[in-house]
C-alpha cells in the first residue's frame, strides 16, 4: 500500500486531531481519579451538560458563541464541585464500588434531566469552519481549531500543575494522601479544587465537541467509554501518558476506520485497551 496515499494521510491527520479532543476529558478524568481516587462514571455526562449549556446560550439565549464558550467552563466546574460535595465527599471512606455506582447514578440523573429539559432531539450548533487544504489532504477547519484549543487547554493545565502551590500539592496528593496534612494541606480542599478543575476540563471538552457533534442526552455514551480507557491507559497521574494514549486511541480509530469500518476500528481500540490492562495494568507509560 502507498503510505502517501492522501486518504491515508487524511486518516492519520484526523486521528491526531481526534486524539487531541479525546485528550482533554481523559486528562480531567485522570486528574479527579488520581487526586480524589474516585471514578466519575458520569464524566462524559458533565461534558454533555456543557454542550447543552453552549447550545442553549448561543442558539436560545442569543449569546455570542465565544461568550457561551467562556460561560460553559465555570458552569461545568461548578457542577463538578457540586458533584464532589453532594455525592463523592460523603462516600470517600466507602468501598470503591459504592463510589462508582453513586456517580453512575448521577449519570442517569443527568441523562434523565437532559431528556426532560431538552427532549431526545439532536441539537446542532450549526457552525462550521471551511476545510483547509494542505497539499492533497483536506483538514476540517473546525477539527483543527478544536485540536489547537485542546492543546492550549492541556498546556494551561500543565503549567498550573507544575508551577503553582496548589498544582504541586495536587500532584503530590495523588501518591500519598495521608501525609498531606503534615504539609499544612487540607486534603478536602484539594479534592474540591481538583473536582472544579476536572469539571472545567469537561467544560472545555464540551466546547470542542459541541462544534463537531450534535448534542443529545445520550451523547456521552459515544465518547465516555473511550475516555475512561484513555485515562487508565495513560497511567494515573501521568499527564503525558494520558496525552499519548489519547493520540494512540485517536490514531487506532481513525486509521482502523480507513482500513475497515468505523465499528471495526472501535473494536480494535477496545481490544487494545483490554490487552494493555492485561500486560501493563498501571498504564502504557507507567514509570
Amino acid at each position, binding site marked *: 500500500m502507498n503510505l502517501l496515499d492522501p486518504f491515508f494521510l487524511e486518516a492519520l491527520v484526523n486521528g491526531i486531531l481526534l486524539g487531541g479532543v479525546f485528550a482533554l476529558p481523559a486528562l480531567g478524568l485522570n486528574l479527579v481519579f488520581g487526586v480524589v481516587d474516585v471514578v466519575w462514571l458520569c464524566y462524559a455526562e458533565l461534558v454533555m451538560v456543557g454542550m447543552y449549556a453552549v447550545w442553549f446560550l448561543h442558539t436560545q439565549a442569543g449569546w455570542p458563541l465565544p461568550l457561551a464558550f467562556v460561560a460553559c467552563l465555570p458552569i461545568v466546574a461548578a457542577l463538578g464541585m457540586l458533584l464532589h460535595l453532594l455525592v463523592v465527599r460523603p462516600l470517600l471512606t466507602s468501598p470503591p464500588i459504592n463510589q462508582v455506582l453513586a456517580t453512575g447514578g448521577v449519570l442517569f440523573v443527568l441523562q434523565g434531566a437532559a431528556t426532560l429539559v431538552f427532549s431526545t432531539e439532536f441539537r446542532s450548533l450549526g457552525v462550521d469552519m471551511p476545510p483547509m487544504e494542505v497539499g492533497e489532504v483536506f483538514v476540517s477547519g473546525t477539527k483543527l481549531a478544536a485540536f489547537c484549543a485542546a492543546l492550549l487547554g492541556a498546556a494551561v493545565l500543565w503549567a498550573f500543575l507544575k508551577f503553582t*502551590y496548589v498544582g*504541586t500539592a495536587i500532584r503530590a496528593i495523588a501518591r500519598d494522601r495521608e*501525609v498531606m496534612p*503534615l504539609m*499544612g494541606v487540607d486534603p478536602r480542599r484539594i479534592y474540591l479544587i481538583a473536582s472544579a478543575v476536572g469539571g472545567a476540563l469537561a467544560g472545555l471538552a464540551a466546547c470542542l465537541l459541541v462544534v463537531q457533534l450534535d448534542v443529545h442526552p445520550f451523547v456521552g455514551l459515544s465518547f465516555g467509554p473511550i475516555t475512561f480507557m484513555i485515562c487508565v491507559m495513560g497511567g494515573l497521574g501521568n499527564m503525558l501518558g494520558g496525552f499519548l494514549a489519547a493520540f494512540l486511541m485517536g490514531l487506532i480509530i481513525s486509521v482502523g476506520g480507513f482500513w475497515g469500518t468505523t465499528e471495526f476500528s472501535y473494536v480494535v481500540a477496545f481490544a487494545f485497551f483490554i490487552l494493555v490492562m492485561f500486560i501493563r495494568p498501571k498504564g502504557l507509560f507507567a514509570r
Partner: protein
Amino acid sequence: MSAALQPPGAAARAPGEALELAGIQAGYGDFQALFGVGLRVEPGEAVGVVGPNGAGKTTLLRVISGLIRPRAGTLRYGGRDLTEVPPHALPGLGIAHVPENRRLFPHLTVEENLRVGAFTRAARPQFEARREHVFELFPRMKQRRHQLAGTMSGGEQQMCAIGRALMSGPKILLLDEPSAGLAPIVVQQVFELVRRIRQEGLTVLIVEQNVAQVLRVVDRAYVLETGRVAAEGRSAELAADPAIRRSYLGGH
C-alpha cells in the same frame, strides 16, 4: 549561632511555646497503643522519645500531629488545645512533622517537595528565602534540586524530608525515626544535622530506636515501653542508668 546559618525570619522564631501531653490514650480500632502518656517539651529544648519497636512512639507523634485523635488525655501547645485543631492547621501553628519513612513525594523533584512543604499561606512568601536556607543546610539538596526525590539515596531523602518540614518555618520539629534504614555513617550525618537544626533555636522532639545516638543529641528523653512512660530524665542520666544501658545500649 553563626550568622550564615541564621534562618530567615529567625528573629521571629521566638522560643515558641511548650508542648504538653498528659494522660494520652490512643490506638487504632480495638488496638490500644498508648496508655496514659505524659510528656513535656519546653521551648528551645531537644527531647527524645526512645523505646523498642511497638512501644507506641510513632503513635505518639501521630497523636501530636492530629493524624490520630487521642481517646483521652490533654494535648496542648502553649495555651492551645491541639485536639481541637485540624491536622492541616498545625504547620501554621509552627509544628512540623517529619514522618516515619520520610514519606517524600518520590515522583516530584526535590524543589517541588520543598514547595509542597511551603504550602501554607504564611509560608509561601518566604519560599525563596527558606529554600536558600535549606540549600545552605544541605548543599546536596541544591545539587539535586531538579532530581526526582525517589531516585536519591536514603540519607539524601532524609535531608530532603527535614528540609521540606523546615519550609513551613516551624518552631518545633517532630522527627520520627530519622535514622531508620540508613547506613551507620549516614546515621551519623543525620544526627549531626539534627544538632545543627537545634542550634538554630528550633525545638526538637525526636523519636528513635537508636538510643545511643539520640541521647547524644537531646537534652532530655522519655523511655516508652508498651505504651507507657517507663523512665525519663536528662540524657546523661539515662545514658548512665544501668537498666537502660542493659536494655537499649547493649551495655553489660
